[in-house]
């Protein structure tokens, strides 16, 4: 047995499921135990595994315990915590502190009739079978999914009935606080036929502590549903964050995913979409802005399983310092998916000689009559652009910041929630020289 597995054994992890929500519901305990078995057999992936070639996660178990807090932290109305929120009036807010639902900080607001927005932990405690199918082994994409199945302390469950339009966004705020916490959020979104909603997932932690977050969000889109999902990763500078976003789409549904990776030490997002019905459409957007020794890995996978579906993917990265970015965009066009239209782009700006990006498009096409295109670029700041700005009196540093801002704004501008865009722009500008000046002018 490896030293790694040995040390987990010492953590006495196999008894953890008995102390988590749903422990007296037979299906929940059974699912948790078998998922834990799968995790402990495999352990964390090593870099010799192709999917983890560029991302070394072995440090995670060394710095934090893998066991989640079994008791929710004291509900807090701490104004400071609230100040971190982006919530604007009308948003349906759910707050989670170290993975535990905080009823006092949350404010679900007025939901349209029939819409359910609930705490997963509560459903598990009640032994509800509603979430059961989402915990099936076939949904485990990585070993971190197994770990989440075993240890989740909850998250949000959103159910939107057919034809209901949720006008205000659902805002899920995850706050990491406390040293060495292992945090396992789990969100489930079930969108009925022709329903519409926007969901914001915001991961934040301002403390310089070694948190480990392993989060999964599953989305089930019925025919004609239209869901926009925006993940904002702004954890603290020492945090490790492994996330999964997994969508399954029925015919003529629309799914848009935005992934903004601005903060954490070691990060990985696995985003998968299954286009299962004719005429489905998905768009995956992403922006990673990294510096110092940050590491961020995006693995996306789109499965075209049905005819006449459209997928679009726009990812951009800005890398400074000794940061390391990874983009792996896989598109699989299955034999049944004739008439597929898939396009993928990944553009990167390297601001320093020590920054590194590994970008890899991966197209696997088994159908005829398909249109699949992709393009990836890696470059430095354009001297012509900088000179043009400087020739108009703009200071060299500010010129750089403007060009970087313009490059990144291509992605930020794709977010439909207007109140979110300035927040992301400001976080970006916080990191750029003279960004304050640009903020004033926007």
């Amino acid at each position, binding site marked *: 047995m490896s030293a790694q597995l040995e040390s987990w054994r010492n953590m006495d992890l196999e008894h953890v499921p008995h102390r988590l929500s749903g422990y007296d519901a037979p299906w929940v305990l059974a699912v948790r135990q078998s998922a834990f078995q799968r995790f402990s057999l495999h352990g964390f992936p090593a870099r010799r595994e192709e999917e983890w070639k560029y991302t070394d996660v072995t440090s995670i178990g060394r710095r934090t315990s893998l066991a989640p807090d079994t008791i929710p932290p004291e509900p807090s109305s701490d104004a400071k915590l609230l100040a971190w929120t982006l919530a604007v009036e009308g948003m349906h807010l759910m707050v989670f502190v170290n993975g535990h639902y905080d009823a006092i900080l949350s404010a679900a607001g007025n939901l349209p009739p029939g819409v359910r927005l609930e705490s997963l932990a509560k459903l598990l405690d009640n032994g509800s079978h509603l979430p059961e199918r989402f915990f099936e082994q076939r949904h485990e994409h990585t070993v971190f999914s197994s770990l989440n199945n075993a240890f989740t302390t909850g998250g949000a469950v959103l159910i939107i009935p057919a034809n209901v339009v949720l006008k205000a966004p659902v805002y899920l705020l995850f706050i990491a606080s406390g040293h060495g916490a292992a945090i396992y959020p789990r969100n489930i979104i079930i969108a009925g036929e022709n329903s519409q909603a926007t969901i914001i997932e915001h991961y934040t932690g301002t403390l310089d502590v070694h948190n480990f977050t392993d989060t999964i969000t599953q989305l089930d889109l019925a025919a004609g549903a239209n869901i926009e999902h925006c993940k904002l990763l702004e954890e603290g500078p020492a945090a490790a964050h492994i996330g999964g976003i997994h969508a399954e789409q029925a015919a003529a549904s629309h799914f848009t995913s935005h992934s903004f990776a601005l903060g954490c030490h070691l990060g990985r997002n696995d985003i998968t979409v299954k286009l299962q019905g004719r005429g489905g459409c998905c768009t995956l957007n992403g922006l990673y802005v990294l510096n110092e020794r940050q590491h961020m890995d995006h693995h996306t996978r789109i499965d075209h399983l049905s005819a006449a579906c459209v997928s679009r993917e726009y990812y951009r990265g800005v890398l400074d310092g000794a940061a390391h970015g990874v983009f792996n965009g896989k598109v699989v066009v299955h034999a049944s998916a004739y008439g597929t239209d898939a396009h993928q782009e990944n553009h990167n700006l390297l601001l320093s000689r020590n920054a590194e990006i590994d970008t890899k498009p991966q197209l696997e096409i088994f159908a005829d009559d398909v249109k699949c295109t992709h393009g990836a670029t890696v470059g430095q700041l*354009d*001297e*012509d*652009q900088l*000179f*043009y*700005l*400087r*020739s*108009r*009196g*703009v*200071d*060299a540093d*500010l*010129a750089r910041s*403007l*060009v970087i*801002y*313009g*490059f*990144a*704004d*291509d992605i930020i*501008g794709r977010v439909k929630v207007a109140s979110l865009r300035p927040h992301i722009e400001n976080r970006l500008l916080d990191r750029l020289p003279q960004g304050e*000046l*640009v903020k004033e*002018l*926007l």
Partner: protein
Amino acid sequence: MLAVKNLHVEIDGKEILSGLDLDIKAGQVHAIMGPNGSGKSTLAQTLAGRDGYTVTEGSVRYLQHDLLAMTPEQRSREGLFLAFQYPVEIPGVSIALFLRTALNAIRKQQGLPALDAMDFLALVRARMQQLDMDESFLSRAVNDGFSGGEKKRNEILQMLILEPRLIILDEPDSGLDIDALRFVADSINKMRSPQRAIVLVTHYQRLLNYIVPDAVHVLSQGRIVKSGSAALARELEKHGYGLIEAEAAAGQVA
């Protein structure tokens, strides 16, 4: 206002300007003409401070400044403006953001307070009206997807807003149809003032049908080989550059 003496400039070790002299006073318009490859654009870019254009000899005085010791942004803040032959696209940066950043940088140098959003908008609107430009222009990214005419118009708009003292226009007429050409020429003529100097860099004489310069210089092989009045441009139109270049070569030998 501008005194260029014995200017030698290299790009990648190759000499492009070989002892160029030029003296321009406030209130004057000078045209610099010459065939392709004679060094016209190199002169414009060198005066604006482009990296990679290495001055190996000579000096440039601009007002009371040693121009060559200044960064591009310092030159701009002191009133030097280069209208680019090929204006650069800056995706994601709106014209409004770009203009306001530039204007405030220049105002700061002049000891003036930054313009707030309202005052800035009022100023830009007025200038855009002058140019018959639609306000939607402001929210477009700088030169991104612009037609050739729109790019030139954008340069003229910047010139109007930044109110420079020394304007260098690098082939302002290239790629323009006759209406656009007339429009650009009108805008330049309106900028003429006793406090301001204008340098027109152009390959063709046609622009000078609309802007009558105080002096015309012919550039060949990195040097000014002939200077004269506006009549010189018409002569060039008739005989081409070949005759003057031949004369210059003969003169050098003699």
